[in-house]
């Protein structure tokens, strides 16, 4: 290998390290769960998709960093290469890099395990923060404290601190209290009263809510996303919490007076402008944003409303929706019992002739949303007219 190739590989290794660090910074900024930032990026779900992409890109590029540096030393002999990257060489400089990279590796591996409980997933994901900081310490150990390393470290540190203080900690969000509870099939409807500044929520939006302690109740203190089902007088918010995992299972026994903290609101699901006719498609718990819209006021556009559920007796808010449909002249309702086979839903869509001219809002489990999205694309509905919320947001 000649000198030029060697130098090219050395520069590739150095630039891979710096570029990986910059991409990690971008990934960290995109995990700052703030409503304003989420709006700028087109919604929390889209922001998190880019958080994953930047994180993954950073990881792949950082793998190149040590390998390229070693490859550059090949003209001087193979033992030089290993000495260059060995964790015991120039201790603790290289060790910091190895531990940081190992932390990234472990944190990413855990994020790909689908069957992990939410609590376990959050703990394993939290490893990534310190791993990133160790990587930056490795960079600073070699290049010294400079404007470059400061520009790298400070945004990452600020993002981590902001996220922990504003979105995850016991003081995150605004304080609320459980004002009343109502038991529904497999679901607890909880009305929350604000204790200080209320969140300004419009129908279709969701909040991040964490339940803490109350009379005979100890909440899990984890923030989960819940779509707001209604806004009552005095800014009270209504959430419908289905029994899905350990934390939501526990919330089924929540009592009045339990402390809650809310962060948000997020989403622009039902906030479309213009006067196109609408199509609403709800699956299971996906009824939540639509019931909030119905409770908030009259339907102002001609709207077809398809609500699919496993069985009528378990369908949340079904009787309320049917009642609203009889009183709203612009709303036409279709109830649909649906099991694993989604073909009946697709058949209903195929009978709606003016589909490409409507604003379409879809909310439900990911398989349902994906099947609907595929049918809508096949029918030529422009992407800008399709708005969806998948009930699967790991945050």
């Amino acid at each position, binding site marked *: 290998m000649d000198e030029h190739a060697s*130098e090219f590989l050395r520069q590739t290794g150095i630039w891979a390290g710096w570029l990986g660090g910059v991409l990690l910074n971008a990934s960290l900024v995109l995990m700052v769960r703030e409503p304003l930032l989420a709006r700028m990026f087109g919604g929390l779900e889209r922001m998190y998709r880019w958080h*994953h992409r930047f994180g*993954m890109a950073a*990881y*792949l590029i950082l*793998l190149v960093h*040590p*390998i390229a*540096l*070693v490859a550059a*030393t090949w003209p*001087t*002999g*193979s*033992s*030089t*290469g*290993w*000495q*260059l*990257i*060995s964790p015991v*060489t*120039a201790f603790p*400089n290289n060790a910091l890099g190895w531990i940081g990279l190992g932390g990234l*590796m472990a944190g*990413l*591996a855990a994020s*790909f395990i689908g069957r992990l409980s939410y609590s376990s997933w959050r703990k394993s994901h939290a490893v990534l923060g310190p791993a990133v900081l160790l990587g930056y310490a490795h960079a600073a150990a*070699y290049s*010294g404290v400079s404007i470059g390393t400061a520009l790298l470290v400070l945004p990452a540190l600020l993002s981590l601190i902001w996220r922990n203080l504003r979105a995850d900690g016991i003081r995150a969000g605004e304080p609320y209290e459980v004002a009343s509870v109502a038991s529904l099939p497999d679901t607890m409807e909880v009305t929350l009263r604000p204790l200080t500044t209320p969140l300004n929520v419009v129908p279709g939006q969701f909040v991040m809510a964490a339940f803490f302690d109350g009379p005979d109740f100890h909440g899990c203190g984890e923030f989960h996303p819940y779509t707001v089902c209604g806004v009552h007088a005095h800014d009270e918010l209504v959430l419908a919490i289905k029994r899905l995992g350990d934390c939501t299972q526990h919330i089924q026994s929540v009592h009045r007076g339990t402390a809650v903290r809310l962060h948000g609101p997020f989403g622009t699901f039902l906030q479309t402008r213009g006067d196109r006719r609408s199509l609403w498609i709800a699956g299971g718990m996906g009824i939540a944003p639509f019931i909030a819209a119905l409770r908030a006021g009259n339907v102002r556009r001609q709207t077809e409303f398809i609500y699919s559920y496993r069985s009528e007796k378990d369908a949340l808010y079904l009787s309320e929706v049917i009642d609203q449909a009889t009183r709203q002249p612009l709303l036409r309702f279709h109830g649909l019992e649906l099991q694993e086979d989604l073909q009946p839903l697709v058949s209903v869509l195929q009978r709606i002739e003016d589909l490409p001219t409507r604003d379409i809002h879809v909310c439900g489990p990911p398989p349902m949303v994906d099947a609907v999205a595929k049918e809508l694309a096949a029918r030529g509905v422009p992407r800008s007219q399709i708005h969806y919320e998948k009930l699967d947001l790991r945050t």
Partner: protein
Amino acid sequence: MKILYVAATLAFWLSVATLWIIGTKSAPYRTTQVLNRYADTDVARHAEPDDCWMTIAGKVYDLSGYLPQHPTSTSVIADWCGKEATNAFETKNADQPHSPYARELLRRYEIGVVDQVK
């Protein structure tokens, strides 16, 4: 993304394992050239950035070809052309030693040793 992660991680660790095995089994790099002996006055005659010799830890190095590649500004290192630069190399004048890689790289530019008698 999962497949990409698994493939990239496996490839990385295979590369590292290979390097470790080769690295711990191979002899370290040794120069085989015959080294000339130079006096301090000889070194001092090469004191320009495009003709730059230095003395470090008793050895003489011709760094003329390396100066443009040095990570920091050329002027930082050019100040030491033609001089004894052991302390500057070991501390970068800020108590920060050069990395092991830098030390290995330096060996490529070795041209002789300091002749204390000459």
